[in-house]
Each structure stands twice: as C-alpha cells, then as structure tokens.
C-alpha cells in the first residue's frame, strides 16, 4: 500500500487538462458577499490559471480576506459562484444523504405516530399485559399483540383471581369469567363479532351474532352484560387511532425528511469539502495548533491521506501503521521544503513568528492542495525575511501548485506575481501583469487618494 504522493500525477493531469481546455483552475464568477447592509465584496470576477501566482492587493478593508474566506468555504457567498477545476465545491447529494434523510424521517414519523396513537396504552397492550398474565416475552408474541392493538382485537387479562375479556388497551372491560377456558371461548366469540364489524364496511350492526354471544354467557359467571354498542365503540375508537397513527407517521416522516434536507442544504458548502477538493490556505493571524508539536501540525494536514478506521488505529493494523509512517515521511519532507526540518519536535506555539508563518505554509503544502491561498504571508517580516518568503512562494509554484496571494509588501507582489488583481471597497478596479497594474491610474488613486 503506497500513499498518494503529495502532488499526484492524476491530480496534475486533471489540472493540466483543465488548463489546456481553457478552464482556469479557479474561476470566481460575479462573487458578492454582503453582511447585512454592508457589501464586503461586490461582483468579483477572478480567474486563476493553473501553475501561476496571482496576487490580490488593495487597501485595508477592500474585501480581500472576505474573498478568501468565501473561496475556502468559511463564508457562503451571497451571490455568484466559485468553481475549482470546473466544479462547484459543494457536498454532493450522496446515497448516504438520501438514506440519512429517510432514516431521520422514519424515526420522526414513528415518534409522531407513537404520540398520536397514545403510546402509554400501546405499551400496556404490547408489553405490560404479557408481564401481568405471565406470558413469556417473544418477538412474535409482541408482534401479534401489536397487531391486535391496531385491529381492536380483544385480550384476556387476569385480575384478582378472575379472567377479564378486555379491549387490547385494557380500557374496556367486556366480561369477567371465573376460569380461563370460559373467558377464552367468550373472547373468541366476541372477537368474531368484532372481526365481522371490521370486515363488513358500512353494514348495519348485526344484532343476531351478539344475541348469540349473550346467550352463551351463563348467568352466574357473567358479571358484565355485553352490549352491542360496546363493540361498535371499540371498533370506531380503534379506527380513529389507526387513522391518527398513519397521519402521525406521514406528517412526522415529511417533517423529518424535509428538516434533515434543510439542515444538510445549509451545510453544503463546508470548509473541509473545499480543502479535500484541493484548496488549502494560511491565515493573516496565524492559526496553528499551538499546543501540538511542529510535526503533528503538519500531520493534521495529512490526516485524510492516512487509511484505516477506528479499529485499525486502536490495534495498529499494518495498513494504518504503514500509512502513519508514510505520512510522517511526507510531513518531514514538507518541513524540509520550508526549512523547518530541525524543529519537528518543538511545540508550535513556541516557534519564532517567521517560523510559525512557514509552518503554516508547510501544513498547507502537506495537504496536497493544488491551489494554496496565502493571506499576507509576509506580514510583520523584515526585508530579508520577505525576500526569503518570495523565494518560497516561487518554489511552491515550481512544484506545480498554483498560488493565490494577498500581500501588502509590494516588492513581494511585483516580484512573484504573474497577474495582479486590485480590490477597492469590494470592487475589482484593475487586473493585469504587475507592470500594467503599477501604471493604472485607478490603482494609484485608490492607494494614494484622488489628489496624488
């Protein structure tokens, strides 16, 4: 088992295909972001070609970082689209999404149905009666009792040494007998009457069968007279419960499914989907995992490349072990690339500022991203460090990784960029080669004011 190399051939091939067919690697189309009434980015168009370095510059508050946050999936755009390698970066509607929504729908439906059919009596009919009469609990028995409950069938219940014929929920007592055999035969006869009422829709209640039943009740042991309307009431009540149950199931299912899909829809654009598609980034204010070691920071970036499930991890399966080892080598390689190989075991938060910036870049590089967004990587650096950083950005490009850069140090921007886009108040005011942008009057005006 070999890990995917950092810059896999397949990925590169896809990117090169995209480039040769004229699609840019990243295609930002009329992107707008509004926070309430404030327009942070307005109709930004930006194409980033494969293998290039593109800089986004502009005065403070021009919306550069907002654009970055939108591309990397932290914010959802108010309008417009971001395409990477020709695809929108959203969670796709997978089979698991479908089954998840169905499952939640079913669960909600069952809950609603349970509430609608009066779950307490259902429980009594299905579980507790079995316990009272000492019947062993079996799945088949419970199923039969459940069916009985919904079909308004009759049950036998023991009470103070006597046997009662009761409705399935135990609420209607129809007759009381001294011994079980009598009670059973009476129950069967009454049951036949109930079934006749159920299967003959619209028929006028037939009194003759009930008269039969009544005759069969020996005077002494019959405590309650059986009346026709008891059975009708029983049947009507059960029909109502059945209707309510189905309605509850249906309503709950619709609500649960729709709710799940609504929640899923809201989380479609998530940062890790964007990251797994091949975009990684660094932050203006460094966001390292500061209590972890330098090496661990980079390994987190390699997380998704390591195979093996939870059990693989717990019991150190060979696949998992090899994966961890390969990831470690890749992480060390990424650290060497930015020149931090010697610092692997230090705690990230204790590194000097410049090294933290480089570690963040190493972590982004290690994810195997094909596009890296660098948000002011040279902020707070002195001229010699800035020069080094420009070299690093160029070396990233030389590895076949495209770079989109936000930077205020103009010497870095002018040295490394293939193209420069200028934002002012959320609007792109110029785009071109560094030399073109430098001469653009609008740009000069934005930076220096209209009188300059």
């Amino acid at each position, binding site marked *: 088992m070999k890990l995917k190399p950092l810059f896999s051939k397949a990925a590169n091939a896809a990117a090169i295909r995209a480039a040769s067919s004229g699609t840019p690697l990243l295609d930002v189309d009329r992107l707008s972001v509004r926070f309430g009434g404030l327009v942070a980015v307005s109709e930004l168009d930006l194409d980033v070609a494969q293998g290039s370095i593109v800089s986004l510059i502009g005065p403070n508050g021009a919306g550069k970082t907002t654009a970055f946050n939108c591309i*990397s*999936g*932290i914010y959802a755009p108010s309008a417009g689209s971001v395409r990477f390698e020709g695809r929108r970066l959203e969670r796709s509607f997978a089979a698991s999404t479908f089954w998840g929504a169905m499952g*939640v729908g079913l669960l909600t439906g069952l809950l609603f149905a349970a509430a609608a059919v009066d*779950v307490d009596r259902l*429980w009594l009919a299905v579980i507790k009666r079995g316990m009272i009469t000492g019947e062993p609990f079996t799945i088949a028995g419970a199923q039969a009792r459940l069916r009985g409950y919904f079909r308004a069938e009759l049950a036998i219940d023991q009470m103070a040494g006597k046997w009662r014929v009761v409705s399935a929920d135990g609420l209607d007592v129809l007759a009381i007998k001294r011994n079980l055999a009598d009670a059973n035969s009476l129950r069967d006869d009454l049951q036949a009457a109930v079934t006749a009422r159920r299967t003959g829709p619209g028929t006028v209640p037939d009194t003759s069968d009930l008269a039969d039943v009544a005759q069969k009740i020996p005077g002494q042991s019959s405590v309650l007279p059986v009346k026709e309307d008891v059975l009708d009431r029983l049947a009507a009540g059960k029909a109502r419960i059945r209707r309510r149950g189905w309605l509850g199931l249906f309503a709950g299912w619709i609500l649960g499914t729709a709710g799940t899909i609504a*929640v899923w829809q*809201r989380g479609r654009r*998530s*940062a*890790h989907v*964007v*990251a*797994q598609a091949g975009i*990684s*980034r660094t*932050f203006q204010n460094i*966001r*390292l*995992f*500061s*209590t*972890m070691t330098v090496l*661990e*920071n980079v*390994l*987190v*970036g390699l*997380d*998704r490349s*390591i195979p*093996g499930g*939870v059990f693989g*991890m*717990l019991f150190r399966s060979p696949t*998992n072990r090899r*994966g*961890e080892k390969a*990831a470690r080598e890749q992480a060390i390689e990424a650290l060497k690339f930015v020149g931090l190989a010697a610092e692997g075991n230090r705690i990230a938060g204790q590194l000097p500022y410049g090294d933290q910036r480089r570690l963040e870049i190493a*972590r*982004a590089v*290690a*994810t195997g991203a094909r596009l890296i967004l660098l948000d002011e990587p040279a902020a707070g650096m002195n001229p010699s460090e800035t020069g080094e950083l420009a070299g690093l950005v160029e070396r990233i490009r030389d590895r076949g990784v495209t770079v989109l850069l936000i930077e205020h140090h103009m010497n870095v921007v002018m040295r490394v960029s293939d193209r420069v886009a200028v934002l002012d108040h959320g609007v792109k005011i110029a785009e071109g080669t560094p030399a073109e942008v430098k001469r653009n009057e609008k740009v000069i005006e934005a930076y220096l004011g209209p009188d300059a």
Partner: protein
Amino acid sequence: MSVQFFLQQCLIGLTNGALIALVALGYTMVYGIIGLINFAHGDLIMLGACLALSLVTALGLATAGPTATWLGISLLIVLCGLFCGTLNVAVDRLVYKPLRSAPKLAPLVSAIGVSFIFMNMGLFWIGSADRAFPELLPSTNLLPMEGLQITWKDLLVVIVVVPLMVGLTLLVQMTRLGKAMRAVSQDQTAASLVGVDVDRVIAATFFIGGFLGGAASVIYGLYINTIGFQIGFQNGLYAFTAAVLGGIGSIPGAVLGGLVIGLVRSLSSAYVGERWTGAIVFAILIVILVFRPEGLLGRRTKEKV
C-alpha cells in the same frame, strides 16, 4: 477508627472515584472538542443501565454459572457501550450539529432538553420505582484478613476502568484520530481548512464518550445494585463536578477529579456523616476553583487578542 478502617474507606473512595471518572471523561471530551457541557450525558448512562438491566433479565444472567457470568458481563459492557455510543452520536447529529454555528447557549439548552427526553424514556422503560439490579458477582472477601475487604465488584471496576483509560490515552496521544481531535479542539476552522472532516471527528468523540459511559452504566448497575430513572441526574452532576475540578477539557484531569471526588465522598461520609457529604464535596470544589479557576490540571485559557 483504625488504620484498616481508613484504608477501607480509601479503597471504596477510589473505586467509586474510578466510576465517576469514567463518566466524567464523557463530559470533558465533549467539552474539550466543541465547548458544550453535555447535560444529557448522565441520563445517557441511565439509559445504558436500563438496557443492562433488560439484557440481564433477557439473558438470564442472574442464575448463570461463573464462566457464563463473566462472559455475560463482557457482552453487557460491549453492548451497552455500543448502545450509548450510537445514541450519543445520533443526538449529536440530530440536535447539536445543526446548532454548531449558533451561540453557545443554544446547544446548551438543547442538551438540557435532551436530558429530560432521556429521563422520560427511562421512566417509560423501567417505571418510576427504583429497580434492583441482580447481584451477579459474589461479595466474598478476596483478602485473608478482617476489617479490610476487596470483593470481585471492586476488582471489576479496576479491570474495566484501567484498560479503558489507558486505551483512551493511547488513542488520543498516538493515533491520527487523536491528533485530529486535538487539532479540532484548538481550532475547528483551521482543522477543516487543512482537510480534517470536523463533523466526523466530533462524532467519533461523542461515540467514545458514549461508549465509556455505557461501560460505566454496566459497572454502576453491578456495583451499586439499584437503578432508577433519576440516577443520571445525580451521578451526572458528580461526574460533571469531577470534570470541572480536574480542569474541563483535560482527560487526565477528569480522571484525577473523579478520584478526588470519590475519596472525599467516602471519607467525609465515614468520618463526618452521610448527610454532610454533598456539602463537603462542593465546598472543596469551590475552594479549589477559587485558587485554580482552570481546575487541577486544566490549562489557563489564553485570551484571544
């Protein structure tokens, strides 16, 4: 008031404390990763205990031989662990996940709601009266002396709790999942931007916390021998206290906090009186928090500038 009596109380305190610690881990892990005090955790464990009781009845363990009993207990721990873990993940998916970007109070209040739902499920499951949990393990003394006794019950707590805690520590320190968990707990956005599936890591955390809770529920039943639908509230409160005492978010902290609370409880009920136990535990908690607000092993949280 001999030395033996003191040792005996310490022993009881430590076993109780280990049990509290196992529950406290569930609180502390979830807090560590998403900053949520999962008030439903105690009631989750109550449901685990209900399942354990139902399984003991269904499997007929109360009358089984010694080998079958031990096998049965292992099976119970695994099944209840899986049950509680899965239930915990389901709750996270259904309730907490849609509220991930909401203000912190929203999931907190939802957790209280889930706690009540669980309590009602327990009420429905086992009824309102306390139920006896069968004594599956003999209470014979394993030590050849009077005055100090260790039973199989005490040993069971150690046999189950210690490996689970060692396993958890290894998982968090050594594996890829552990690294991802630590990364997510520090910075969710940064973690997701370097490709970590944050929702899955959170789900894994909920599962592990729930699994430990499920194991704790079985041990609770076997050790205390009485369960009821309200045990989740009281024990959850003690476990939550242990997590705060040790420094919420810290795994060794939860273990230490659990042991401290267990010891304080048993010693104060032995030397001061049962009715003072709660007051003493919480008084000590307050004193410790006055001097170390971040808990015994907690890290001082840096203010974000």
